[in-house]
């Protein structure tokens, strides 16, 4: 793909680079301090540590990374063009496919953008149900992320499988509510598609109450672990100023100590009525990114308990809200929410017809990748792998 030399055979392709021969992009090639040769390694695209089909073009001086260029687009299917070719409702199931973990929050972000564009109101019960599902998604995403990150660190299997055990319980809830484990297609403009039953709510309550025990177990295994601390502390530090400038959002931004959570800042849905704290990191390294997510899950449990307790009755969907035949009048809207990975936003331009004239996805994974090179410079390849893991990307969303 981009800038490529032919990739054949092994995935990690090592070759010697002559500085004079290297002028593929017109950028100057870094030189070795120690007088040795530089190595260019292609890490990926089919490597387990890249979380999908992702390639890093790494130049090494000895073991130290002196340049790293991410290369992606392998999963590009022009999602935004597909959105222009279908009705507003028709894009809803496509938003599931951006991210295999966060279908519910992607649905919500899209629904919010369309509701802003068309001026649709949402019944209170639906707002609560949306919060419940978003927080379950956050638990799901952060548990899995911790598992994947530990896998990248080299603790093969165990933490990931523990996380997957919990993930399966949440996916069971999603399935019984929406009919699908991962591709939920659950939110609608002006509410949600089906009303959760009393049984379902009881199941969600049971899961929420039991989740602390899982987190205690998980943290006993990982948080204080000496090897994990040695491996992740001080690695991939992201200064707060760079994080803000680079548009980094979500737990990654908060791990750098910037208090910015859209649930507080925008106060969308019923979040202003719920009591929760926003955990912040001090150092902005990989360990802080892991820790912030762990603490966020504890807060999510609190939010879930409040939302399940306060859930009002009433309709789940605004009966006057149009779904299939929605034709917002000409204009535009940008709607965003705090997804588990960061700010997920949708920008829509309507020309008054049934299809959007422009449908844009602001994917958190894509923007968060901007600073990957800055984080990795001066570290080793093994560190680059866990830095990438701590950014929390899903390639379906990066490539769109």
């Amino acid at each position: 793909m981009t800038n490529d030399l032919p990739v054949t055979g092994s995935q990690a392709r090592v070759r010697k680079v002559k500085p004079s021969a290297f002028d593929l992009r017109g950028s100057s090639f870094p030189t070795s301090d120690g007088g040795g040769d530089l190595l260019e390694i292609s890490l990926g695209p089919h490597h387990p540590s890249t979380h999908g089909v992702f390639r890093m073009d790494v130049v090494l001086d000895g073991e130290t990374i002196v340049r790293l260029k991410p290369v992606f687009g392998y999963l590009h299917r022009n999602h935004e063009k597909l959105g222009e070719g279908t009705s507003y409702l028709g894009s809803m199931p496509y938003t599931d496919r951006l991210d295999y973990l966060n279908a519910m929050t992607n649905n919500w972000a899209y629904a919010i953008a369309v509701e802003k564009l068309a001026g649709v109101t949402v019944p209170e019960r639906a707002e609560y149900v949306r919060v419940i599902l978003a927080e379950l998604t956050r638990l799901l995403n952060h548990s899995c992320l911790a598992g994947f990150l530990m896998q990248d660190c080299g603790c093969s299997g165990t933490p990931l499988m523990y996380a997957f055990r919990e993930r399966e319980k949440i996916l069971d809830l999603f399935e019984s509510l929406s009919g699908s484990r991962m591709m939920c297609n659950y939110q609608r403009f002006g509410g949600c598609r089906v009303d959760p039953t009393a049984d379902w709510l009881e199941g969600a309550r049971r899961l929420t109450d039991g989740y602390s025990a899982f987190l205690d177990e998980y943290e006993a295994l990982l948080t204080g672990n000496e090897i994990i601390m040695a491996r992740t502390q001080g690695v991939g530090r992201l200064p707060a100023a760079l994080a803000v400038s680079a548009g980094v959002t979500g737990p990654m931004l908060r791990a750098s100590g910037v208090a910015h959570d859209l649930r507080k800042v925008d106060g969308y849905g019923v979040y202003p009525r719920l009591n929760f704290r926003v955990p912040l990191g001090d150092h902005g390294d990989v360990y802080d990114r892991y820790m912030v997510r762990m603490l966020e899950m504890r807060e999510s449990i609190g939010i879930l308990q409040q939302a399940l307790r306060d859930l009002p009755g009433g309709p789940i969907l605004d009966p006057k809200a149009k779904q299939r035949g929605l034709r917002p009048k000409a204009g535009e809207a940008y709607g965003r929410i705090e997804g588990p990975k960061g700010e997920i936003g949708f920008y829509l331009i309507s020309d008054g017809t049934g299809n959007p004239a422009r449908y844009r996805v602001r994917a958190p994974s894509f923007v968060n990748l901007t600073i990957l090179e800055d984080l990795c410079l001066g570290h080793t390849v093994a560190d680059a792998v866990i830095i990438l893991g701590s950014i929390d990307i899903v390639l379906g969303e990066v490539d769109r």
Partner: protein
Amino acid sequence: MEALEVLRERLCARFSGIEVALIPNASPSGQSSLLLSGSGLREVAYFLRDDPALRLDQCSNVTGVDWPEREVVDTVKETQPGAPGEAPTIVERKIKRTEPGCLEVVYHLYSIALRQGPLVLRLRTGNRTDAVTVPSFTPVWRSCEFQEREVFDLFGVVFEGHPDLRRILMWDAFKDHPMRKDYVEPDDYEWEPTPHGDVLAKARKHYPVPMAPGATDDPATAGKISE
């Protein structure tokens, strides 16, 4: 945040050589935008980022919009003097004109420090073919780096001053810009055992497909056997 009209006045007073137009947004979202044109726009961006009342330190979203050339019909009312003693008649005339196309880049700016936003900025290119350059805001907000590359890749807007302007989602040898409205997909039809509907119409362009009795080539009815 201050009203867009006030901000527009402030920008016009401070920067000579730029024009700022307010683009109203009739939708319930109410997110109107400022259209910037002229020279030295990057200075304006630095100002928006550093001004103590705005401090728009986060450029959240950068995207392109393609506005192809289109025909617009304007209705003009003309008063024609009537015959002496009669009232003048009003005649409506419809004038067709072609509105030139352009590419637009939209920036959504927020302030994390002051918790305000969005300020929606728009830049427009001169046309869709040869005057497609706008200044890059990557030196101002680092988050533009990949997003402007994406706009370059999918829409063909050239960002002047971007440190590393390459394709990002499509491969380097790719020629066209797929998000443009007039983009034509490559004809990459693959053999289908049972073509029907518009797939059948496509198949016929590549090799002879036996026609069912009573079937037509019309894509709407192709593959269906009429009574």
